[in-house]
Every structure is written in structure tokens, then in C-alpha cells.
């Protein structure tokens, strides 16, 4: 071996050693994010969601007309009973009161997103607390803990036993017609889903060796739950939250459709628009199609992202 290649080799080894010295470990969250960035499904979903969010923010400012501005009856039905379809100055046409559908669509995005996010957050937070408590008692509370968990979970079972839409309808009906009622109703329906999911995930982690190891290290129970069990139980819950956002939007739309939504006509929302379009479906089907397609595409965006996250977070696919 010549001297030159030998020094080359030494240099290379030194470089290698140097890189190792500075390299920091990749946490599972970071690796999952890296996988997410390479997933086509995630990118499509994220783009749809991003467009939706942008629309929700700037919608009211770029809308060509006021969403509540009406026109004369003669202009609404120029040809006796026929709606004004899509045309140059009204891209989506006019509704039965002569309001510009395109403007209503743009402005309605904000309300729709708000309902989805707030409802899911309500469900997530309450479900997380209930499920987390039940899971903590079940894994580390001994016999008494198991009994407490059992009581909590039976209540959750009662909630699950009711059809979700029926439950939401009754809550919304009791609370009266308001946007808050819709959000709470849709949120409450999500509680048992999150609670069960987190508890189940915690139970699975609770029997794992590292929880046993944490116990044998002498960690306090609260610390074990917060630093060992919960961080490892989060991924299915995060995925579920993304998927629930889509369901929440659809359920809020369903409630609006049933007439339990926001009664204020000044604030358009896709679900409300769908309800109103129903009466004129024979004459103007496109009036229903616009908000429906909006809801479907948004729900699709969240579902795609959710599915991609499920795959990215799956430890079996780690590599």
C-alpha cells in the first residue's frame, strides 16, 4: 500500500469520527415527520388543508359581494322559476334570495373550519382527560385503580351506546339553536372515541418492559404516566384527531342540515348552505353541489393527512 492511500484512509477515518461526534440522535417524532414529508398522501392532504385554512382566513376579504346582499326578485328568477346559474359576475350563480353563492362559499369556509376545529378540540381535551385518568388508574393504580377505571369506562360505554348523530341532535336541541350548541354537540360525540382510544393505548403500553423498568428505577407513578406511558400512547390519538376533524365538519353540516345550526343568516356556513339548497334541489341542483363538494374535499384532505400520519407513526414501519 502506498503512503498516499494510507494517509487518505486515515483522513477519511478522522472525518468519519468527527461526523459521529457531532451527530445527534433522531427522535421517533422527528423520524415520523421525515417519513411524512416523503408521503404523497400527506402532501396532497396538507395542500388541501392549507388551501382550506387560507380560504378561511382571507375568504371574507376576497369575496366579490357581501354574502348577505340580496337582489330584486325579478333578477333572481329572470325566466320564471329558473335560478340564475353560473355566469360572468356570479361564478356560482345566485341563491333563492339573490345572494351571490360564490361569496357565500368563500365566507362560509371560516365558519366551517371553526366548527370542525373547536368541536374536535372539545372532544379531544375532555376525552384525553377522561381516557388518561382511566388509563393511569388501570395501569398503575392496582386493584382500586382497576375498579375506578371500570366505573369511568362504563359511563363512556353509555355514551357510546347512543347513536352519535342522535346524541348530537338531542344536545343541540336542548341547548337551543346556536353555533356554540353545534360545536359542543359535535364535540361531546367525539369524547368516548378519544377516551377509549387513549385508555386502550395506555393499557397496551402499561404492560411493556420500559414501564416495568421505570417502576424498578423507583420513579413516581405520576412521572411514569406522564413521561413514559402517555408519550408512547399519543400517536393513535393524534391520528384520530385528524380523522375526527373531517367527521366533525360533516356532522356539523348534518346538524345544520337538520336545522339545528346557526340561525343567523348573516354568517354563512357550508352546512347551512346545503340545508337551504335542499328546497330547490329540483330547480337548482348546483346550489347544493358547491358546498357539498367543499365539505367533501376538506374532509378528504384531513383524512389523507390522518392516514399518512398513521403510517408515519407506525413503529413497525420504522426504518
Amino acid at each position, binding site marked *: 500500500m502506498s503512503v498516499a492511500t494510507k494517509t487518505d484512509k486515515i483522513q477519511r477515518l478522522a472525518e468519519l469520527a468527527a461526523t459521529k461526534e457531532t451527530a445527534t440522535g433522531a*427522535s421517533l417524532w422527528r423520524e415520523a415527520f421525515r417519513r411524512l414529508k416523503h408521503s404523497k398522501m400527506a402532501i396532497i392532504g396538507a395542500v388541501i388543508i392549507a388551501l382550506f385554512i387560507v380560504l378561511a382566513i382571507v375568504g371574507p376579504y376576497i369575496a366579490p359581494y357581501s354574502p348577505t346582499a340580496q337582489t330584486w326578485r325579478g333578477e333572481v328568477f329572470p325566466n320564471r322559476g329558473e335560478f340564475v346559474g353560473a355566469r360572468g359576475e356570479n361564478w356560482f350563480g345566485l341563491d333563492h334570495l339573490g345572494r351571490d353563492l360564490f361569496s357565500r362559499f368563500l365566507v362560509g369556509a371560516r365558519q366551517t373550519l371553526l366548527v370542525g376545529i373547536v368541536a374536535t378540540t372539545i372532544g379531544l381535551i375532555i376525552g384525553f382527560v377522561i381516557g388518561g385518568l382511566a388509563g393511569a388508574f388501570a395501569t398503575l393504580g392496582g386493584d382500586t385503580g382497576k375498579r375506578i377505571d371500570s366505573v369511568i369506562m362504563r359511563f363512556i360505554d353509555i355514551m357510546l351506546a347512543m347513536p352519535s348523530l342522535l346524541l348530537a341532535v338531542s344536545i343541540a336541541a336542548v341547548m337551543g339553536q346556536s353555533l356554540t350548541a353545534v360545536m359542543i354537540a359535535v364535540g361531546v360525540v367525539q369524547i368516548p372515541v378519544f377516551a377509549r382510544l387513549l385508555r386502550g393505548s395506555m393499557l397496551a403500553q402499561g404492560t411493556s418492559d420500559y414501564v416495568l423498568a421505570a*417502576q424498578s428505577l*423507583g420513579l413516581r407513578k405520576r412521572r411514569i404516566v406522564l413521561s413514559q406511558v402517555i408519550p*408512547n400512547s399519543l400517536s393513535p390519538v393524534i391520528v384520530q384527531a385528524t380523522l375526527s376533524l373531517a367527521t366533525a365538519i360533516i356532522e356539523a353540516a348534518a346538524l345544520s342540515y337538520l336545522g339545528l345550526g346557526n340561525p343567523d343568516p348573516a354568517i354563512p356556513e357550508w352546512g347551512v348552505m346545503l340545508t337551504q339548497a335542499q328546497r330547490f334541489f329540483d330547480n337548482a341542483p348546483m346550489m347544493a353541489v358547491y358546498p357539498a363538494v367543499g365539505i367533501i374535499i376538506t374532509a378528504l384532505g384531513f383524512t389523507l393527512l390522518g392516514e399518512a400520519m398513521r403510517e408515519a407513526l407506525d413503529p413497525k414501519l420504522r426504518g
Partner: protein
Amino acid sequence: MSLLELDGVKVHFPIKKGVLFGRTVGHVYAVDGVSLKVEAGETYGLVGESGCGKTTLGRSVLRLVDITEGSVVLDGTDLAKLPGEEMRRFRRRLQMVFQDPLGSLNPRQNIESILSEGMVAHGIGKDQEERREKIKSILDKVGLPSNALSRYPHEFSGGQRQRIGIARALVLEPDVIICDEPVSALDVSVQAQVINLLEELQEELGLTYLVIAHDLAVVRHISDTIGVMYLGSLVEEAPSDALYAEPKHPYTKALMSAVPVPDPEVEDRRERILLTGDLPSPANPPSGCRFHTRCPWVQERCSTERPELRDVGGGHRVACHYADEIESGALKRTRPTDIEAVTETEGVVTEQPEGATEVSVALLPADSTTKPDPEVVKERVSSAVEARSDQTADAVVKDADAANPNASGKTSDETD
């Protein structure tokens, strides 16, 4: 006085039925009365087959499972009676190394976080800086680079992960480390490294080990004293060399005879004890001696009276009524244990015609003390086939006959 003393430890898990108000319908007698002593600075090895309760026993020492009865005394303190918070603080002195190196490390924590968690819980080190220094010195001791600190468990190899597990136990400066199958998840070359590391650390830090394993070679290598467990209790305990030289309990004999000898001639000639049947369920253990359902030397007394561990001299303790009689040969076997006997019985009950040829081939090595004669082999094959065909329909006999010349031809080819 020994550092760690277990006296009559029992761990019974209730079997529950019902949803809200569980009703206890029985117990799993995972550990059923184990007494042993571990001397300071020594290694106590615990062996036994899967499901014999050795892992549960290890966990009961740390109170990771509730102790139903008995006492675990560490340095004069009975751990079984300590209230929760005091037990938590006491765990600093008793640490554990787990079987699955990856499973026992939290996948979402980096190494620094994993190793400092225990120190934080016990208030060791003023700040993270001080703790990091300590972690670095321990990492050095177990042979890991200090840049491992910011890495995550999945970025390491199996052997390195187990080193992390050992480091995690060491940072708390424990007196006793319980190693639950510390190397069984590693491949053989790495096993040796980890075992040697454990021995070096023992010498350097004066550690006391309780090693739980099913690998007899590993246990022999590392242990000073060995206890053999069967179905929740100790059947034999002896200094490691004495146990391997002359096992006294029938179960230990069978266990030892399962280890192959790396000398083909000795391997051929030595006596092998094959146990029949499976390990009985610990939820419904046999009466009397737990081993009497499988013991080759079983007597009437064994099914009624449970033998206690008794000293037979030289620190050798054995739980068998007839250990001395078996040793002197005064007691005859009451069950077949020979490898040939067991194989032949199996041959007769084999259902398929091809079974006969398989048996004939299997008979060869077992009989290799005498020179195999092709004629004898032929005879055996046909007799085996006949024995079979007596019990089967005509069509099958035809098949067997068709297979017969083929089979004997094959076997004589092999013997030539």
C-alpha cells in the same frame, strides 16, 4: 447474615371472572414458597424452564408484583412489608436488567434522559450537568461512547442496548442487580461480551447478582450458587460446580442431560433422560411433589407428601424424598426415560405409512454402540412396518409394503 434473603416467598395471581365486580375463581401459583439466600458480592443463578416462575420471583424481589406471603429481606429490611413510598426509595438499592433490551427502553427518550430519570427520582446529583458527568463515566464503564447521550434506543445494536440497560441500573449505585435473562435476546458472540461485562463490573464495584436464565451454560459461567426451579418452587440448590458435577434431583438430572456434550463419543454413550409430558399448569399444580407427574423414579409417597429442601452436605440442598436412593441406584425407574425407549413407543403409534421408514432411520444412531448390521436394520424396518400394519387397513398395508423395499434399500445404502 446474607445480603438478600428470601423466606417462603409466595406469589399467587388471582384468576378473576366477571366485569365490574371480579370474583376470584382460583389462583395461579406462580411462585409457591421459595427460600434462598444471596451472599454479598456473589452471583446466584436461577434456572428452570419457561413458566416455572423464575421471572415472577425476580420481579417479586423488586415488588413489581405483589408478594402474597413470605419475606424478602435486603440488608435487614423486609421489603414485603414496606409501604409504597419507602419501597420506591428503597428500589435504588435493588436494580433490574431486563430480557428484551429494546422493549425495556422507552423509545421516545434519548439515552441521557433514560439514564438520568432514576437519578432525578432519587435526588442524585444537584443539576443536570452533574448528572451528565456521572452518566458519562458510567457509559465509559459499560463500553459505550459518550456521544450516545443524545441518541435514541432504536439507533443502537442489541448488545449496545443491553449495555444501556445495565448502565441504567448502575447509575443508581445499587447493591443488588437482578438480571432477568440478560443475554437470551442477544446473539451468541454478543452474549459473551455482555456476560463478561457483568463479571467485570461485579469485580470492580462489588455487585451482587441474582441472574435468572434458562441457558445452563450462561448460568454455570457466571454463578457461584445455582438454584433450580420447577413449577414455582426450588427443587435443588448447590454451589455451581457441585450442581453440574452431581445433580441430585431427578429434574436437575434431566435438565443437565439435555445439554449436548461437544465430544461425539461421550455424547453417544452418555445416558439421556427424556421427560414425558408437559409442565403442569401452575393454576392447578399436582399434589405432593410438584414433579411427581413427570419423574422417572416416582414412588407412591411422592404424590401425597411434598418434599422440603434438605441439606445433603456441602451446601447442596435438594427437595426429593429419594435423592439418596436414586444416587446409590437402590431405586429402579418406574417410567421409561431412555431415548430409544421413547422413540420406539412413538414409532408404534405413528399413523402414517411413511412413519415406519422414518423410525428405521431414527433407530440407527441410537443403536450405534454396536456396529450396525444391514440385516439387523432390515429386520427392524420390516418389524416396525409390521407392527404398524397390524393396526391399519389393507390399503395402507399395501402402501407400506410398497415403501418397504425402498426403505430398506435406503437404509442399507446409508450403513455401508
